């Protein structure tokens, strides 16, 4: 293949005055000067915080039932669904005094391994594991990021104090998503006929 040379002519101004660049530079300066006083599109973070949606996928929590016990039945659906393999559950018998057949003796989530995909929440048949809006996790050691059962229940207690109506809010969002016209009929038709996007 031979080398082809393409001569690209520089864009020229309308008149020789434009080509001296004095007035264009001045125009440019005026443009940037106007931007000096525009609204600053920033959130002053520690003072102002963004309100996150109820279905935000932050730190996990283990929800409690009406008797204050964890809802979890240690079915291990979440740890099976987890693509990052960050959930470790040791199941145990409820015993005679406890009405539950099975419950987790140990429940650990390694938040450093977690990819916050939310598949554990989707997999859970008991709504026992859920996600909060807490995203600013900071600690000193790797071990501190392994959340055990007590800590995850503690996250629930803290979170429910701030959002007592969490379940209702979240369900509302999901319902809205289901009813929304995100997938239209024509989309489905197109997909059927293979002429989609």
């Amino acid at each position, binding site marked *: 293949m031979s080398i082809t040379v393409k001569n690209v002519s520089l864009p020229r101004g309308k008149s020789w005055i434009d080509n001296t660049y*004095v007035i264009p*530079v001045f125009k*440019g*300066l005026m*443009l*940037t*000067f106007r*931007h*000096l*006083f*525009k*609204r*600053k*599109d*920033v959130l*002053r973070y520690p003072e102002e915080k963004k309100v996150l949606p109820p279905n935000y996928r932050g730190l996990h929590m283990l929800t409690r039932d009406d008797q204050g016990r964890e809802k979890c039945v240690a079915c291990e659906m979440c740890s099976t669904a987890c693509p990052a393999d960050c959930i470790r559950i040791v199941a145990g018998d409820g015993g005679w005094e406890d009405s539950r057949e099975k419950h987790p003796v140990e429940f650990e989530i390694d938040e450093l391994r977690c990819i916050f995909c939310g598949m554990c929440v989707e997999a859970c048949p008991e709504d026992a594991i859920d996600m909060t809006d807490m995203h600013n996790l900071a600690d000193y050691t790797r071990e501190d990021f392994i959340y055990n059962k007590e800590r995850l229940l503690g996250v629930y207690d803290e979170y429910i104090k701030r959002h007592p109506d969490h379940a209702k809010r979240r369900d509302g969002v999901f319902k809205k998503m289901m009813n929304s016209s995100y997938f239209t009929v024509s989309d489905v038709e197109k997909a059927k006929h293979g002429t989609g996007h």
Partner: protein
Amino acid sequence: MEALIPFIPYLMIPIMVIVYLSTVPIMIQVERKVSAWLQYRMGPNRVGPLGLLQPIADALKMLSKEDVIPNHVNKWLYIAAPALMVFPAFFVAGVIPLGVLTIAGQDVMLQIGHTNIGILYVLAISSIAVYSIAFGAWASNNKYSLLGGMRSAAQMMSYELPMGLSILGMIMLTGSLRLEEIVNFQMNSVWGIVWQPLGFLIFFTTAYAETNRLPFDLTEAEAELVAGYHTEYSSLKFGMYYLGEYCNMLTASFMVTILFLGGWHVPFLGSLNVDPFVKQLIQVGAMAFKVAFLMFTYVWVRWTLPRFRYDQLMNLGWKKLIPLALANVVITAVVMAF
């Protein structure tokens, strides 16, 4: 009061040092804040009220950092180079007049040295800065530093020519190299920018090139040369380069003000009915205002114009600015002759 007059130049020495040294932290803050505002950001606002103590934090950081001298450097040149940057930057302050005061019936120039070569002195001393950059770049023994230093030397030398030529018109009109005479000439007629619009444009452009500021910051060109000539410098040695750069900017702003913006001249101040001493103080303030505006322009231009390519820089310098400056000199001479 009259006994004070001979000591004014000596009093001006600490004043000029304070002016130069206090400009640097102010400019660090202005640079960061204005840069942020132009990009819809807030800028530093953590340290002190409104982030006003940020320059102090920056300076303390610079002081307390480890002073690394790499093994592969030419040690003596490496240490001498930053000092050589600061020395001319402060030395030029010696002839810059800040204004005039009437003390006991006598006009006293607020200036350290009353030399009759004023502007030549400024040009001569400020061009020593190129040695600092070239030495620093060479001593660092680093290819990026060397590239930056080489570019810088070429750039500063080629832009010194149009710079010298552009002020020639003003000197011909005034008939004096004294900076105070140049200001007096403008006070009695109109500002230099009206006499010499082309000279002003060329001087203004070359001032940016001489101080290595955008759009002529090829010496640093962080996208391609890491940091150019000061790549290997850390701690206060880097701080010295920083200080020198801002001092050079201040000197350049002073020169633009004195040569083309009427120095401490305030239009229509003569018709104002106030005490002459107050008037003179207003004039000093006007000088400060003009210089401050020019310093702001440095930051403003930085976020408006992109960096020149090396060949574009050389083209502009040698093929455009020098012929234009020469033409300006010839035209001025012809007009003055008739």
